[in-house]
């Protein structure tokens, strides 16, 4: 079969790092090729080169057999290459049609001709069974639907080669299934697809072949049918990976956290983000919160940590109502928080590692006395966390946190929070965007907290993570508690359905 896109010996250097070291990739016509690699392996750089965002230092790109040099996205567009970005590029108060024609508006004299465009979009939508309403306004449709609009945008521009950049990160398990079906339909219609991902299950389900890169280097291209997930994982990471988390059965103890009918406002005025929410977390257990992004998790976590006011209901920590306590009072009474966004909330990027390690305890002895900071004690504290939590830093405790890799930033936060020896550890998306090694490590640390009799509240959008780590799982949808299941007695399908808002009894 002939190749529609070939990239040969692509090399791209950034100051101090070789992002792509002679990587070759060939996409056959009418296939789904997965591009597999950990975060920072160079996947995005490679695709940005294909899409004309970066210029390669050396190497050759061929499209339909002829040499091309792609210097900007418009050129890629003209060659029939389109990309669905991880973060959608849509105007929220525009309709589907308006978004799709943006940048190539069909004109009629001085006015827009939306009718023809709308008709063409409807036809495309039917042909590929995308089920998109051309007149719907973006902010009123689901995330999965928005993604289909992005796909339509490429089809509208007659793209033959479609690049999907981590398309499943924002979807529910059911939506993922639908997306895979859509990709297969596209393939059946003769489109060629590159699927960028680090999720092996999806590659197994969707892709024909898989190109693996690691630390900027080309590792190999394999036929997906001939390899197991474990084999591909080994290619990606460079060593054997254990996916299961060792966790002994243990009887949970006293209630540490108890939420009673908690209601919290969302960012939209007058709308409750969390409604009448009641759960408890006991000593020695991990309670997972499963749900699609934006269904009340943020409101829940911010209400617990004091970043957001509660509307009604009570938050009991060790039996004491803390719902009107300040953030600092809550930290002092035993809540630690690994925040969702480590760079926005968790760290002061312009501070050094040691300064970040005392972010919550700088005013306590020995770190300060009579308002004066004690550099020596601060250094010792940071050195201990760096050692205990295997934080890799360039220059030790004085390294600016900004220069740490994402995984090490996260390990530093986990170390800091665990070091507070909290009764309740709230971990939100604790492994987002991390490499496999760091994920394993952080998972072990969370389970260790549980084994030591602490309560852990795990909020994650990665369903696998919730299923693997939790003892019990609370499913949240549209701000309400849909159900509570035991992790040992449920599976992905059941939880996935509940995440869409269907209660346990209602399932057929």
């Amino acid at each position, binding site marked *: 079969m002939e190749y529609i896109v070939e990239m040969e010996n692509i090399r791209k*250097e950034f*100051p*101090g*790092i*070789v*992002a792509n070291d002679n990587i070759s990739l060939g996409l056959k016509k009418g296939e789904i090729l997965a591009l597999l690699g950990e975060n*920072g392996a160079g996947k995005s750089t490679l695709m940005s080169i294909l899409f004309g965002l970066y210029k390669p230092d050396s190497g050759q790109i061929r499209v339909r057999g002829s040499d091309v040099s792609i210097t900007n996205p418009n050129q890629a567009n003209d060659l029939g290459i389109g990309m669905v970005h991880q973060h959608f590029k849509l105007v929220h108060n525009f309709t589907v049609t308006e978004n799709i024609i943006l940048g190539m508006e069909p004109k009629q004299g001085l006015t827009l001709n939306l009718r023809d465009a709308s008709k063409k979009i409807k036809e495309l939508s039917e042909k590929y069974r995308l089920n998109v309403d051309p007149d719907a306004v973006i902010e009123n449709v689901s995330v999965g639907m928005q993604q289909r609009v992005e796909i339509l945008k490429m089809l509208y521009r007659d793209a033959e080669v479609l690049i999907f950049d981590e398309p499943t990160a924002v979807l529910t398990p059911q939506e993922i299934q639908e997306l895979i079906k859509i990709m297969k339909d596209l393939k059946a219609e003769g489109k060629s697809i590159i699927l960028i991902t680090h999720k092996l299950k999806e590659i197994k389900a969707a892709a024909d072949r898989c190109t693996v890169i690691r*630390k*900027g280097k080309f590792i190999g291209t394999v036929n997906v049918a001939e390899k197991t997930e474990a084999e591909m994982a080994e290619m990606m990471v460079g060593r054997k990976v254990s996916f299961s988390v060792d966790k002994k059965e243990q009887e949970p103890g006293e209630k540490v956290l108890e939420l009673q009918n908690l209601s919290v406002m969302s960012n939209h005025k007058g709308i409750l983000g969390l409604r009448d929410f009641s759960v408890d977390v006991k000593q020695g257990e991990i309670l997972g919160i499963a749900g699609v992004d934006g269904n009340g998790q943020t409101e829940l976590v911010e209400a617990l*940590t*004091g*970043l957001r006011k509660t509307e009604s209901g009570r938050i009991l920590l060790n039996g004491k109502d803390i719902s009107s306590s*300040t*953030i*600092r*009072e*809550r*930290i002092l009474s035993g809540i630690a*928080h690994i*925040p969702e966004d480590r760079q*926005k*909330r*968790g*760290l*002061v*990027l*312009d*501070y*050094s590692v040691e*300064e970040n390690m005392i*972010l*919550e305890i*700088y*005013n306590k002895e020995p770190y*300060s006395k009579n*308002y*004066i*900071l004690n550099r020596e004690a601060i250094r010792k504290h940071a050195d201990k966390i760096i050692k205990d939590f295997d934080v890799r830093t360039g220059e030790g405790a*004085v390294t*600016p946190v900004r220069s740490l*890799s994402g995984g090490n930033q996260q390990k530093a936060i986990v170390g800091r929070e665990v070091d507070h020896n909290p009764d309740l550890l709230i971990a939100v998306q604790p492994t987002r965007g991390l490499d496999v090694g760091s994920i394993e490590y952080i998972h072990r640390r969370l389970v260790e907290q549980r084994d030591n009799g602490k309560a852990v509240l795990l909020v994650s959008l990665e369903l696998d993570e919730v299923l693997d780590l939790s003892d019990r799982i609370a499913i949240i949808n549209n701000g309400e508690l849909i159900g509570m299941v035991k992790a040992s007695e449920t599976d992905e399908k059941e939880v996935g359905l509940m995440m869409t808002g269907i209660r346990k009894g209602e399932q057929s």
Partner: protein
Amino acid sequence: MKTTVNKQVIIGLISVVLGLLAGALLMLITGNNPFEGYNYLFRGGLMNIERIGNTLATATPLIFTGLSVAFAFKTGLFNIGASGQMLFGGLCATAVGLSFDMPRFILLAAMILAAMIGGGLWALIPGFLKARFNVHEVVATIMMNWISYWVIYYTVPAFFKGEFLETESRNLPAAASLKAPWLTNLFDGSFINYGLFLAVIAVILIEIILNRTILGFELKAAGYNRFSAEYAGMNVNRNIILSMVIAGALAGVGGATFYIGYASNIQIGVLPSLGFDGIAVALLGSNAPYGVFISALFFGILHSGKGFMNAMTSIPPEIGDTIIATIIYFAATSVLIEKGVNAVKAKLSGMKNKEQESVPAEGGR
């Protein structure tokens, strides 16, 4: 830590050099000899002990306004109201000086204290508005500048009118001036005054507050990233107000050094430009107290030397201001300079790497 400081120094120096080069170009275009021009400019600032004294006296209020802006910057606030704070602080100091008859030391201390409180109060309002209602401090401090301007316009003629002129206050008695005969004599009759010592103390104090105390730790954390400061349980709103008040108090004392040290009375209808120059001083000093000190001295030289340059050559004094403006421009675009420095570094190390091709570049961000 060490390398970052050095980098800032290099960027500052490059800004200065580029600014001076641009000034030279201007002198050339206007048909003058830049070497001659710069010779007189620097001689005008440093030629003899009296001129050095004047340079230091000119620099003194700049140190304060620079510190004020830098301190606010460090804590994430843009204090564009140092002029108004200076003016009001100066009014408070002058009012105390003209109204009370006390032993000199106590009087001076009371005047400085009044200036601190006045400047702090002038910044408290924008700080409160920012913390409570999220009113942008740039807008609020500019408004306060004009309120200060008109308050002086009314107060001075109404209560402290000079003997001959409606437009300025009475001259302060010698006991209420920061000038000291021994100091004036030491510097051959220059304007130098006790304000310089206050400035040095302020620089050291601010350095300690910012880098050694938990107050500085909190304020900087809120400035760098208010979301993580909030997350860590710090009272961000209180810190915003406190930070503005400290910045205002600094500018207020700066006003005192200007109106009761450098000058001996306060004029109406003039919004001192030193408050705005403070922004430049802070930028060039990369918001570090010691950096502010040095860059204020440098600006002091330019300010006090430009008159001499004008007298000795046909170069207009505006060239001096243009050089200052250009330096500010380069300091403000220090990000670009930093990029340039990094690019040169990368090129140099790239050349080194090519020489030893066999060494693989390690990945990992």
